Structure formats: C-alpha cells, structure tokens
C-alpha cells in the first residue's frame, strides 16, 4: 500500500488535464501524470518517489485507443503494452514490446508510461525511434506534433506540464527490424542490453536500452554502413563511451555482448579474445 494520502484527479479532456497540472504546480503541489501505475505505485510505496497528487490520464478516451489510419497506426499513450502486442497491425514492434516486464505487468504497463517513466530503460521507445514515429503531445496551446527523434534525447523532452498524447507509427517505414534482449540471468528482469536494429534502404538504426543510464541510438546512412569493413567495431565504437557498470553487469560485459550481438546481426567478424 501507499502509506500516504494523495489527491487523485481524473480529467476527461486534454485541456482539463493540462490545466489541472498547471494549477497544482502553481500551488506548489507535487503532482504526477499517471496511467498504468506499475512504476508510480511501486515507487510511491517504497518512498522512492514522492507525490502529493496524481492526475490519472485514463479518463481521456483518445489516449486509450489504437486507430489504423492510411499512413499511421495511432496509438494512445494509455494503451497497455499487451494491447499493442496483440494488435495485428503492430507486428513489427511486438517482438520488442513482449519482452518488457512480464505478462501480468504488461496488462497495466502503458506505452506512454514506459517512455515517460523514471526508470532508465524505456525500451518501448527503441522500435518507435527506429520506425521514425511521430508523437502528439499536449501543452497550453493544445495538441502539438513532433518527430519523436526530434524530442527524444535520453528521455522525452517535453516542456513543463506537457504530456504525451498519442504515438503515430508509420505504416510503411520500410526496413527490417531485428532485436535481441539480454538479461543478467532470468528473463523477468531489466535488460543489461536490449539492442534494436532496423536496416532500411536509406539508413541503419541501432538503438540500445539497459546499456547506459538511458536509451541511446545512432542513425547511420545506408551508404556509409555499406562501406564499413568492420561493422562490429564501427557500430560498437559509436556506443562504447555510453556503457555503464552496475549491479546487473559490468561495462566490459555489456560491450562484449553488444559486439557479439552485432556480429550475429551483421555477419561481421568479432574475436572476443
């Protein structure tokens, strides 16, 4: 249980939600946007986060739907991962999403929460970045749209009080997405390396979660990539500086796993000795 009393707000429109946050902040109330709750509740219980109020975004219906449009699949930020995993139009991202947390948690864990949470992994952002998705977000003047790549750097950089509304995943992004998630041991754990690679005609996307204290990615023009004689060394070289050591794995092991996996993906040579 959360041993503290919290104020709970459940607005039904984006304007109400934004106003609610703005007003609370002006009143010096420490408030959080809230959706699935898998991270917020556990952190509040442990005292790892503090909040006096939560604003539950699940009252905004457009944020809980998946719409199939001509160019995009539009996914509301409140959509639980399992709903995305089971959606026939989202097969390309499914293999990445269905490795996050476990099935029971994914019933509640939302795509927006995974991307905007405090935990350093934010794995769900990798395939969205790879497919060059756009996002819609809400601020004072209403709903805005941006390319995810323009607003995501380590974390989603939205202005104060703004919140993620929808994600627009291009239906014909092109390319072949491959991924591999590795854990320190049991699969129901955070990744020590989750690598997502998307190779299209124009670019090669490589994104990592669990490798650094935040998700990192690199875009390599396809013609540059094709020229590389040592793709393993070249790709690893782009990321090595970001590797971290923590309780789950050492920096050396993470770098080794990355090189090993890139070698498997690209057919490039890697001699770990």
């Amino acid at each position, binding site marked *: *249980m959360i*041993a*503290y*009393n919290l104020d709970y707000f459940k607005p039904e429109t984006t304007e109400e939600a934004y106003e609610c946050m703005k007003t609370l902040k002006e009143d010096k109330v420490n408030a959080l946007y809230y959706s699935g709750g898998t991270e917020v509740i*556990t952190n509040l219980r*442990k*005292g790892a986060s503090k909040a006096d109020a939560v604003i539950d975004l699940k009252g905004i219906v457009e944020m809980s739907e998946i719409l199939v449009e001509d160019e995009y699949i539009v996914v509301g930020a409140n959509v639980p991962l399992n709903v995305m995993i089971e959606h026939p139009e989202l097969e390309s991202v499914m293999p990445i999403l269905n490795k996050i947390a*476990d099935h029971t948690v994914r019933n509640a864990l939302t795509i927006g929460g995974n991307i905007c949470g405090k935990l350093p992994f934010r794995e769900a952002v990798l395939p969205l970045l790879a497919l060059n998705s756009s996002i819609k977000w809400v601020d004072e003047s209403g709903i805005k749209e941006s390319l995810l790549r323009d607003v995501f750097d380590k974390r989603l950089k939205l202005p104060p009080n703004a919140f993620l509304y929808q994600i627009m995943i291009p239906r014909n992004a092109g390319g072949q997405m491959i991924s591999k998630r*590795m854990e*320190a*041991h*049991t*699969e*129901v*754990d*955070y990744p020590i390396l989750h690598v997502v690679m998307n190779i299209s005609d124009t670019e090669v996307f490589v994104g990592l979660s669990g490798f650094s204290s935040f998700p990192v990615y690199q875009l390599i023009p396809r013609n540059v990539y094709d020229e590389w004689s040592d793709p393993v060394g070249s790709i690893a070289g782009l990321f090595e500086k970001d590797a971290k050591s923590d*309780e789950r*794995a*050492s920096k050396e*092991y993470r770098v*080794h*796993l990355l090189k*090993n996996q890139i070698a498997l993906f690209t057919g490039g040579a890697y001699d*770990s*000795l």
Partner: protein
Amino acid sequence: MNTKDGIGTSLTRKESLDKVSGRVIYGGDNMTPQMLYAAQKTSPHAHAKIIKIDTEKAKGMKGIKAIFTGDDYKDNLGLYLCDKPPVARNVVRHYGEVVAAVVADTYANATAAADAIAVEYEVMKPILSPLEALSDDAYTIHEEMGSYSHIKPIHPEPGTNVANRTKIRKGNPTEAFKSAHVTIETFVEIPPGDHVAMEPRVAIAEIKKTGYVHILSSTQAPFVVKGLMHQFFGIDQGKIIVKAPLIGGGFGGKAGIQLEGLAYLLSQKVGGRPVKLVNTREEDLTGSPGHIGLQAKIKIAADAEGKIMGMDMDYYFNSGAYADYAVNVSRAAAISCTGPYYVPNIRCDSMCVYTNMPFATAYRGFGHIEMSFAVERAMDELANALKMDPLELRIKNGIKPHDTTPVQSVLNESTGDIIKCFEEVGAMLGGDIGATQQLENNTVRVKGVTGLWKAPAMPTNTDAGAILTFNSDGSCNLNTGVVEIGQGTKTGLAQIVSERLGIPVDKVHVVMEVDTSVSPSDWATAASRGLMMAGMATLEACEDAENQIKEIASAVLRVPKRDLKVDGERVFVPDEPKIGLNLSEVVLGYVYPNGNAIYGQVIGSGKYIAKHLTDLDPETGEGHPDLEWTLGAEGVEIEVNLNTGKYKILKAVCCIDVGKVISPALARGQIVGGMAMGMGYTTMEGFTFNDRGQVTNGVLRDYKIMRYGDEPEYQVKFLETPQQDGPYGARGLGEQSVIGMPGAIANALSRAVGKGMNQIPLTPEKVWKTSMEVKR
C-alpha cells in the same frame, strides 16, 4: 485397510481449495476493532553509532500511540545466543536493522510518523566477510559477547567475532595427508540472501488484563515462541497462547523467534492493546533474518584408487550481525561436514562468524546446502586430479550402513542407499558425466552430479504429539502441533490415519491452525521432521483410539477385544463380518436401544520423543545428534553458450531414498520445489553490497528469484529403504533436494569453462569471464 486413499496415493491437499480461491486468512489478514498498527524505521547504514534519535515531531503526529527505541528495553533477545536488542541500541550492526518502531491507530499514520523520526548516525566502517571478521585488525562486533547467555551445545569465543565454533576431530588427518597419493584444495564463497517466502512475517501481540498474552504469528515454531516468551519476559508458560495459522511459506525463515518479542513490547507500551506488526517486503528481506553466507576451505586426501583418506575443512559461516539460528547452522554443517562420503580421518572447524551484513537464520537445508557446495566442488576437483569419472568417484566413497559419520555415530540399516541413488542419477542423465559435448556456435552441453545427506539438527528431546477425537458420523479430527507452511504434512498425516484406521481420508479432518493452548506440544515445524515425528505420534494416537473402540465393541458384541478388527468405518469380527458395529455407533459412546449409554467418547492420544540423542563433545565432536539420515543424489544437464556465458539448465534430476512415499504427488512437489529453490539460489540469488555495506538489491525488482520460464525438465525417482522407526518406514524429505543443486550446477559449469566456478551466484557474466580467463 479398505480405503482408496491411504499410503501411496496422491490426494489434493486438505487446504488447497481455500488457498487457491483466496479464502485462507493469513496472519496479516487479521483485523479487530481494538487493533493498533506498528511501523518500523530501519537503518540505511551497515555499521554506525546511533548519536541521537529525535522523536519529537513524530510524537505529535496524528494517531500516534507509542514510539519505541533501543533505550526502551535494556535486555537482549536471542534464540540460542542472547545477542540482539529488540531494536538497535546505541549501535547499528547491519543495513536494514530496525532502529525505532511506532504504534498508531492506522498503519498509514504509523508509517508517516516512522518517516518523521530523525536519526543521527556516526557511520563506521563495516566488516563485509567472515575472513575479514577473523583478521587480526578486525574490530569486535559484539564486545559484550562474554556476558550473553547461550545454550550449551554452542561455543562462542568472546573477544572475537566467532559466535560458535564446532570442532570435528576423527582419526589422524595429518597422517592421511602425508601418505596420500593425491591432495586437492578448494575455496568457495556464498553471499547471504533471503528466503523470499511469499508471505512477509507478521506478529500480532495482545496482553490481556488477566495477564494472558495472546500472540498470533506467521511462525513455524509456535512452541519455541512460547518457551522464549517465558524465558525473555518471565511470562508464565500457561499464560502464553501462541497461534499459528496457515503460513505462506517459511523455508526456515519463520522458525525460531521473529517479530513476536517486539510486538509484545509494543503492546506493553500501549496498555496491552493488540498491536499488529507486519514486515514490508523490504523489511522482510533485510530487517528480518535471511539465509546464511559462507566462505570455506576444503582439502581432500585420497589414495591412487580414489578412496578418500582424509579431509581438512574450515567452514566460515557468515552469520551477519546477529547469531539467531546461524550458530546452530554452523554446528549442523559440522555434523555432516564431509557430505555423504565415508571419511576415516577428519579435521573440521565450522565457525559462525559475525559480520556487518543482514543476519541469518535457518534456511532449507540448514547448513547443508552451503557445506555441500564446498564439498561437491572439492569432489569434482579430486575427480579431475585423479582423472576419474566424477560419478565413479562418488560411488566409490558413498557412505553405507555401519560406516561412521564425522561425529563417529554409526549408520544403521535404516540409512538410505546412496550408491543406488548415484546410479539412478547417472542413468537419468544418460551417463558419461565427465564429458563435454560440443555443439554449434561455441555452445557446449555439460553435466554435473552431487550426493547429499541430511539429518535433523535439533534438541535431543525434540517431541511431537497427536490427539484424535471423533464425530457422531464416525469421522475423526486430528490435532497436532505441526504448522502447515505449504509442505502438505497435514494431508500426509491424514493419510496415515486413513491407512491405520481404515477411515476414508475425507472423513479424517485435520485441525489447520496450531494453538499452543490446545495443540499437543511439538518442537517446531522444521528440520524435515514433521512427517516422521508427528507421524509416529499419530500412529500411536490411532492405536490408542482403536483400542478404545474395540473395548466398547467387545462389551456390546460380547466378543473378546482380540477378535475384533477396525476397518472400513466399522469394528467387526473378521471371520464373521456381520458381527460388528459402525464406528458412528461407538466413537461417542454406545447407546443401547433402551437409552442406556456406556463408555463415552473415544479420545486417542499419541506422542513421540527423539531417542538416544546426545550433544557433541566440544573438543572432538563425538556424539549422536542425528536421528535419521536421508540420502540422495542429484544432477543437472546444462547448455552453455561460451560466447555470452548464457546457460540454460535443460534437465534436473534427483534420486532420493525417503524410506516410504506417503503421498507421491506431495513428495514429488517437495523435491521439485527444493530443486527449483536450489537453482535460484545458485544461479541468481544473494544480496549485493556496496563498500559501505549497504544492500544494493534489497527489493524484489532487483533481488531475482526463479520464474516459471527458468524451470528445466525435472526427473525424480524415489527409493524406499525403510526407516525402521518411521511411520510406515517413511523419513524426512522436505529440505533435502535443495542441497545438491549448487554443487551440481557449479560442477557442470566448471566443466564447461575449464576452471572451478566457486562463487555463487553463478551468473552468465561470471561464466563468460572465467571462460575468457581460461582461453587467454
């Protein structure tokens, strides 16, 4: 017997339907209008002086009834060695130690106030391993040890960090090492960790105006709690009533005494009102005791044929900050320090060493899982040195009836057949244990085997009792002191009654809750002794009831008692079965057609006490502390990717000699459960620490345990060499299967990488690193 559900059949457990439908009321589910709620404040430091505890702000907060700090109670509590204040006094000795407790009208208010207590610490350098604690410049964690009271069988060394040293001296090990053909030496390490029982610990204490103290607790040992509450607080034994409802898993972590003492002191502070003290998961992990750690040095001397000539061993058990059960864990490991092998010459010092880590209590296997890891790693090193098949080496040295144990007690015919266990395990794994099979992509398939043995480590006068009463339909009610902790003993005992009296098991009702004021005395639900001891008491109660039933029937039927038989819910004359009575007609006394009644109700009672047990000689370890030995062998087959160190346990096998299988499904469940626990323990568990001694994985997000997806294929085989003094020949099997898993897994992985993998947990990263070291 006439029922279909006696010995040897698999039944649904008596409590299962309520459990799986959420209808069981566990300790923490209890709420009464009078109840107050406690919250604990814990230390973020591993070793610190408490300079000041400022409770002013907390005192003024809403609903606060009492605040308890170290100064509120001047004495120590302790199971075997009285070393622990109920909350830290003046000094903090481990991360997560409770430094204050708050009682309030609601749990939320108690928690808010606990948060508002400000503690000023002077942080000091912690000791973070047993060997560090034994170094010359180590500070003494318990300076007052000399003044602590303790039970006789343990041997603390005041002025040092040794809370117990058990010495085993057998034969002439010096000579054995001198004349050996080959000697090997190995060193292993295991970190402290936690049981991770599904239910966190809870205790509710109330002091009535009449002086009766009621304690409801998630305890495996209600009678131990009763005894210690008397010892610590001088409460009359008859006025202490301890109730143990169904427990959500214990694994040893709820034996001894846990939160009960503090809950009692908190109730005392609020005029005796009931106070509920429940651990959060985090408090349960690091505030309450977990499983013990170990460092150990093992040397083996053998002749050219691989016969073991001698062993020289130092076990440094990591007790953490307090002794609790750990002192006896180190003693239990000494008793079986060689593993299940006959060794004529032994020197062993098994020590329980204080450190500034979370403290340790009993854990499934009770010292044997740790001891076994050390011995079984050493056995594989010996097989390597001798260039001998690891299974053959074990078969050659397996202990047999008439051999002497390390404490020089002689194994009798009731001892299980470990040689056959080894052979069965070898066969289940497809033989060729020492081979490494190369697959594609730098992947190998390897096997590992271990032997295991365990006898209960318990007081020499360990007892059990059973009371059998009856209902007017001829059904009966069995009341024992065994706590149902998920092991299924109550169902096993019902099967014993069913078998013995010929009553269908549906009509054998078991009393689930243990209540020390009405249940017969029973030492503790620990040490895998529940089925054997309570089973023997139950058989005696059945015999007593049968005797009474025959006595009534002999009067009514006018036949001698000796001509009567009880079976199929009747008492009758076997050669003229029409002459008989239904049990329903006799068990509450017989009523003649004219209304006259005779005899009254049948009440069967039975008891059991361990026989011929003695303590150990303090200098040589000689003695007879071992009631019965369960022996077995285990093995695994693992596929290892040497590129990443990632491995998958494909198959885990166990052959164990249990004397007699009472309930096959329950027995298999216990064995497989123990194997799974042992796999988690070996591959991913254990606390991690920073250099300040803070636990860095003290939450279940980070402290990983086995998940369903991690399970291999299991194969379990039972042997039935009867335990001649056990119920229907059965002996204990609850803990044993956990014991051999660390050694089996480590032996297989060591073979895969070509070097000893001697540090638990055996993470893929360690496998990869070791493999790299070997290749470079």
